[in-house]
């Protein structure tokens, strides 16, 4: 085993200090060391998008980052999406209402990717949404219901912000 490296990072508003092996991926660190198992792992080589999390405001594959690379970063996982009181985020509500999930395995990645999209672009058109959804793979829902959920979430967030 190589020497452990000390890192400090903020995850869902909580600061953490930890020692990690350099080869530990950020996804494995979140799941194993911080017990944040909401971030799921699919292909582990950047293709499926299921492990997508927010690092310094940007949606990225947590399987394609080392935990040591996240030193000093601000991270949000699916656990940070809803309120502390257990209230679901409008994107999560829209997924339920529009049947944007079936088995739910890929859903954490979709939610985070869509969160970034709507933060940058509050009312995206179909093409802009599909550009982002193209980076996420779902094997059961079919993407039309997810597309509808994004439009619905955009409307909810727009109404809440107005």
């Amino acid at each position, binding site marked *: 085993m190589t020497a452990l490296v000390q890192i400090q990072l903020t995850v869902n508003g909580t600061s953490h200090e930890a020692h990690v092996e350099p080869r530990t991926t950020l996804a494995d660190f979140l799941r194993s060391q911080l017990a944040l198992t909401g971030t799921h792992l699919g292909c*582990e080589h*950047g293709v499926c998008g299921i492990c997508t999390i927010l690092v310094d405001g940007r949606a990225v594959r947590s399987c394609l*980052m080392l935990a040591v690379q996240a*030193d000093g970063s601000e991270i949000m996982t699916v656990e940070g999406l809803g309120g502390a009181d257990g209230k679901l985020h409008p994107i999560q509500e829209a997924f339920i209402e529009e049947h944007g999930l079936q088995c739910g395995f890929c859903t954490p990645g979709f939610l985070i990717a869509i969160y970034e999209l709507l933060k940058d672009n509050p009312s995206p058109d179909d093409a802009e949404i599909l*550009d982002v959804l*193209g*980076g996420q793979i779902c094997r059961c829902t079919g993407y039309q219901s997810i597309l509808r959920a994004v439009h619905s979430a955009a409307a909810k967030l727009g109404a809440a912000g107005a």
Partner: protein
Amino acid sequence: MKPAPFEYLAPTSVGEAIAALQEFDGEAKILAGGQSLMPMLNMRLARPGLVVDLRRVADLDYIDERGGRLAIGAMTTKRTVERSAAVQTGQPLLHAATVSIGHPQIRNRGTVGGSMAQADPAAEYPAMAVALQATLKVVGPGGERTLDAEDFFVTYLTTALEPGEVLTELNVPVFDTKNGWGFSEIARRHGDFAMAGAAVTLTLDDSGCCAEPRIALFGVGATPVRPRTTEDSIRGQRPSEALCQAAGKQVSEEIDEPLSDVHASADYRRNLAGVMARRALADAMRRLGADIASTA
């Protein structure tokens, strides 16, 4: 945890990175955005002794306009390039190549220098760099040198970078309305590596005929491929739909036997290379005012 163990270093200067690369003498890998290296580590296709992470090296993340060219730092992400007004207005071929790479979630991390140094023959950036006559700044133990993109790509995943050298900057020309360009690629799924693609640049001479046509094909050889016979036969000709058709056919005939794999057979790639070149050339001519149907 899938990668094999490695030592990790995050230097704060290029000099420190070079010293580490020299110390590990070919056993070290540079980590930029990680969108190619991390899959290779996860699958243990790469087992470096040392990973040198450039994230803390200051001053490698910039897009500067200098003397009619754009200088782009090696650690600049694709997302920054794609959103840069200087790139959108000044180098539209670079912009088109950038938004064709992967997905936004990949472009958020992937860097300009990473794509160049990875030198995947199916990737967009190497062909873009060859079409644009880009230059690359490289820093090593002996100092700095500048390489033409065409000399940088040696073969599959192999560049002219020496083991102790670090790529620090991509430099491309700024285009105006006199520069025609086209970019075309085809993949099985949106965001996948292309089965074949083409980047084209073109200008017209005083009589309105094609001058300096450059075609860089990707996905068909070990490096970006320039079909020079086709370029020669375009030069001096008046832009037309027929010229695009003929050029596309000639590209398919001219190129060496492409790779055959699970994604596409050699014959299919040969055909696609011609179609992609034809479309990109037609787009370049259209941007220079030629009346060519979009189906050309």
